[in-house]
C-alpha cells in the first residue's frame, strides 16, 4: 500500500514466517526485501530469504524489474529471476519468470505469465546461473486476488497466485492465499499472509498440501 500509493520511492520489508509441507519440509523463514521505484514507470524489487531449522542457510534470492505500459489499469510487464535452494538436499532451482499484471483496479489484481524452471542437483546446486539442467521445464503462471475489505488504514485480500517473490508453484498445485496490511503511520505498515496449496485435484482426491504463514513490517523511505 505504501509503495503502490506512490508515497515512497523505496520500501523495505522484513518478515518472519513458517513453511510446512507434510513429509517434505518444515522450516522457519526470515526474509528481507526492497522495492525501489527509481522513476514513475519502473519498479525494481530484490530480496533474500533464509531458512532456519531445516535446509539451514540461504533459501532463496530474487530480483525483478517491472514497467508500467498502460497506466489506466496499471498494466505492468515484469521480468524476474529466482533462485531457491535446499542445502540439506544439495538441490536448487533457478527460474526466469515473465508476467503481465494489472491492477489493483476495482480491488482486483490479475496476472498471467510463463516460467522457465531449472532444477540443479549436486555440485553447483547453489549457483543461480544454471538454466539448462536435465530436468528443466516450462510452466504457466496465474494470479487473481481480490481486496475484499479496504479501510483507510488497513485492508484484507484473498485469492490465488501461483507465484510470488521467491517461489513459483507447480501446475499440480493450486495455491490459495489471504493477506492483509495495517498502516501504523505514514512510513510503517504491518503485513501478514497465509497461504496453502491444493494438490491431487487431477485424481478427484483433493487435499491441502502445504501451509505458509508470515508476518512482517514494511518501512517506506
Amino acid at each position, binding site marked *: 500500500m505504501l509503495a503502490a500509493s506512490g508515497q515512497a520511492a523505496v520500501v523495505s520489508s522484513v518478515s518472519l514466517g513458517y513453511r510446512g*509441507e*507434510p*513429509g*517434505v*519440509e518444515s522450516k522457519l523463514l526470515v526474509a528481507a526485501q526492497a522495492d525501489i521505484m527509481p522513476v514513475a514507470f519502473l519498479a525494481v524489487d530484490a530480496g533474500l530469504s533464509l531458512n532456519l531449522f531445516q535446509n539451514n542457510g540461504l533459501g532463496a534470492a530474487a530480483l525483478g524489474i517491472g514497467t508500467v505500459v498502460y497506466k489506466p489499469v496499471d498494466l505492468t510487464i515484469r521480468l524476474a529471476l529466482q533462485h*531457491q535452494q*535446499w542445502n540439506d*538436499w*544439495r*538441490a*536448487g*532451482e533457478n527460474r526466469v519468470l515473465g508476467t503481465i499484471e494489472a491492477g489493483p483496479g476495482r480491488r482486483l489484481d490479475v496476472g498471467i505469465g*510463463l516460467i522457465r*524452471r531449472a*532444477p540443479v*542437483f*549436486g555440485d553447483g546446486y547453489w549457483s543461480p546461473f544454471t538454466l539448462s*539442467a*536435465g*530436468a*528443466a*521445464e*516450462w*510452466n*504457466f503462471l496465474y494470479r487473481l486476488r481480490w481486496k475484499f475489505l479496504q479501510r483507510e488504514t488497513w485492508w484484507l485480500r484473498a485469492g490465488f497466485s501461483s507465484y510470488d517473490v521467491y*517461489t*513459483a*508453484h*507447480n*501446475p*499440480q*498445485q493450486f495455491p490459495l492465499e489471504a493477506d492483509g496490511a495495517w498502516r501504523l503511520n505514514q512510513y510503517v505498515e504491518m503485513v501478514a499472509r497465509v497461504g496453502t*496449496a491444493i*494438490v*491431487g485435484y*487431477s*485424481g*478427484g*482426491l*483433493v*487435499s*491441502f*498440501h*502445504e501451509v505458509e504463514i508470515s508476518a512482517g513490517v514494511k518501512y517506506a523511505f
Partner: protein
Amino acid sequence: MWGIITRPTIEQRVRECLAGDLPEPEPVAVDPDSFCFAVFGDPQIHSDYHSSLDRFRQEVAQRGIDFFCVLGDLTNDATSDECDSIKLQLERVGIPYYVTIGNHDLFQADGWERFKEDYGPSCYPVAIADRIKLIFLDTADGTLGPAQFDWFESELADSRFTKIVLTHFPVFDGEKPIMWRLASDAERVKVQSLLERYGAYAWCAGHIHGLRHLQVDSVHHFTCGAMAPGTLDYGDPGYLLFTFAHDSLSWQFVELN
C-alpha cells in the same frame, strides 16, 4: 494433509499398507543370472473394456518376459465392471505381475477398498533374485506423504540391490507446461536428492500417456504410461523392457505397433 473428500488420503492408505495386514506380493522366481521384465502404466480401460493387453501377451511369449509391473490407472472410472475386466485381462497375460495404484483407480468411493482386495498394498518392496529391489510407491494423490517418505528412504538405504522405483506420478517429464507431475518443487527436489544419495537406478512412472526417458544426474526417469486406449499424449502404445544379464541391467522402449 487434510482430505476434503471422504476417501482414504495418501497417509491413511500408506499407513494401512505399512501396518502389515495386507498380504505383500511375493518375489517372482526367475533365473538370477538372466531375466527380463516389462513396465507400463495406464491400461485405463473404459466401459468398452478395450486395452492393449492382448497385444502385450504376444510380446510376452516372443520375448520371454518373466513378469510385468503396472503403474496405476488400471481403469478409467474404477467401476466394478471395469475393475473385474482389467483383473481378468491382467491374469490372462499368463505371467506374474505387480501393480500399484493411480488416481483413476480412486474415482469411485470404494476405489481403495476394491484395489487392495484385488491387488493388496499400493506401496511395498519386492526383491527379485537378490539382484534388484523394486520399490512400489503410492502417488495416486500426486504426493508421497510423511509416512511414505520415511519408509521410502529406509527402503532406498538398502545397499544390497539395484533399486528401481515404480509409481504413478512422474517427477520429471519433458519441458511442456503440464500439470501431471509430482506436486511441489520441494517434494520433487527431495525425491531426486534421495534417489541420488542412495544410488537408485530409475524412477518409472505412468500418468502421462507416452514413453519418455530423461536422465537427471545419475538417475533415469522413465514415463511409461503408454497402454491407454485411444490417443496418447505422445508417441505410440508400448512398454519399458528391463533386461538383467551378465550382472548388468539394461532397458529399452518397445512400441506395440
